[in-house]
């Protein structure tokens, strides 16, 4: 965990109510894709947790949806600095992804998979990516994933773009043979994946958080191996420990 000021380089919409925020600053706290940052916003008591979409040693990209007052306020910041806690959570474990990992993102659960995918590609893993959205207006980052050279399928619930249906429907159109999967998105999606895919998975969860660094016990969940803090022992849990 590091606490640092980041400079806002840009903060523009890339889909309906979805913004891409590019920040410059010390990313030394970040150690794995799937980790998150916690953003201080003036006038709000708690910080807002947002997954790291991608990062390098100069800065990072975040993608977030405006769902309430905090994210709305964030979307209005076009310059200046933000106070962040970085490198929060465990993130995805690359070493457990195998050679042919399947990445599944739902809605604004998609961003952390991009940073993961990039690093998997660097390591030579032949990933495939399935992204699920509600409707065509919500779709983002399809091209960015393709640009990494991975097979990328998009499903929309209303069929207005890509494959009609859920990510699980899209997955059925892929050849079998994946040795693991990594997923981030709404809980029903995670559960459906867990139920249908018989391979090992890493699932990224959300929970209401206060601290985001493991001290308040706000975000606890029960797993097969005892209670875990989503913010510190997660957000990524392994498919075989989750109690649904």
């Amino acid at each position: 965990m590091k606490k640092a000021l980041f400079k806002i380089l840009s903060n523009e919409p890339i889909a309906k109510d979805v913004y891409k925020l590019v920040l410059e600053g010390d990313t030394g706290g970040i150690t794995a894709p799937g980790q998150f940052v916690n953003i201080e916003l003036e006038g709000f008591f708690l910080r807002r947790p947002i997954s790291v979409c991608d990062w390098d040693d100069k800065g990072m990209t975040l993608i977030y949806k405006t769902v309430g007052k905090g994210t709305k306020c964030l979307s209005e910041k076009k310059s200046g600095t933000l106070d962040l806690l970085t490198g929060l959570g465990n993130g995805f474990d690359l070493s457990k992804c195998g050679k042919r990992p399947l990445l599944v993102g739902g809605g604004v659960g998609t961003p952390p998979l991009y940073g993961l995918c990039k690093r998997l590609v660097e390591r030579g893993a032949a990933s495939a990516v399935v992204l699920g959205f509600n409707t065509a207006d919500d779709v983002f980052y399809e091209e960015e994933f393709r640009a990494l050279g991975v097979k990328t399928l998009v499903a929309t619930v209303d069929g207005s773009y890509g494959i009609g249906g859920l990510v699980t429907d899209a997955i059925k159109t892929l050849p079998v043979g994946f040795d693991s999967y990594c997923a981030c998105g709404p809980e029903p999606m995670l559960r459906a994946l867990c139920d249908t895919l018989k391979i090992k998975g890493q699932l990224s969860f959300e929970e209401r958080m206060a601290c985001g660094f493991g001290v308040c016990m706000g975000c606890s969940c029960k797993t097969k191996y005892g209670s875990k803090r989503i913010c510190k022992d997660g957000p990524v849990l392994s498919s075989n420990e989750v109690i649904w």
Partner: protein
Amino acid sequence: MADMSVVLSGIKLENPVIPASGCFGYGAEFKDFYDLNILGSFSFKGTTKEPRFGNPTPRVAECTGGILNSIGLQNPGIEAVINEELPRIAAFFKKPVIANIGGFSVDEFVYCAERLDGVEQVGIIEVNISCPNLHKGGVNFGSDPKAAAEVTAAVRKATGKPIYIKLSPNVTSITEIAKACEDAGADGLSLINTLLGMRIDIKSRKPLLANKMGGLSGRAIFPVALRMVYEVRKAVKIPIIGMGGVASAEDVIEMMMAGASAVQIGAENLRNPFACKEIIEDLPRVMAELGIERLRDIIGVA
């Protein structure tokens, strides 16, 4: 050189700044952020006889200037704390800690106090009789002078360590309860715990917290906490650890002027993990500005 030291029941603290129970875990996460030995002490997460998962989630909700929590005392149980957490703490914190204990019965408090009695690391036992997230409909030891006195007297017998009773603000007369605890043998008082509050999600039309109600803490409650410390200070002779919304060196000083001998900082640590460090570093500057040479001289001056 600014003298920031204060004394609680014979235990000298380098400074009055103490992270509050429930907002600092057992210290392990914070030790990675800064050297915890700069703290006056710290109060660890409320510990019960048996391990507890606590209440269902969501169990935190944001409010203006504060946070509601309904954690419900998640902790690994007193044995794990004694056998695992305290040895771990010993490795990074060289001062006496404040052991915060919770419970559902007088016996549970007594049990925990007895088990901690022999633990050298423990400087003070802080007896939380005021958790707003327990005892639904049952006895709340913190809202009744008799029940508060009963717990105090029983814990008094169970340990030779100084005991500080942590009081609830959700009462008509906190001074009455404070006096009952003093009479029953408390060495000091910690106040305040959280204010009982609630939020509703207007989309789902359901309470935001799975447990419906929770405890409000953070800056929003500072004026209420300050008033209670002031009132209790006039009513009892034993020292008070003041808390509730403290977020700056100025707040620490204001709380001490109201009557606190030391000050705990809770929710502010959750927004800013460096809060206690920054406050300790800022105190000498503020003291100089205000012409305060020894911090303990201002206790209760207002």
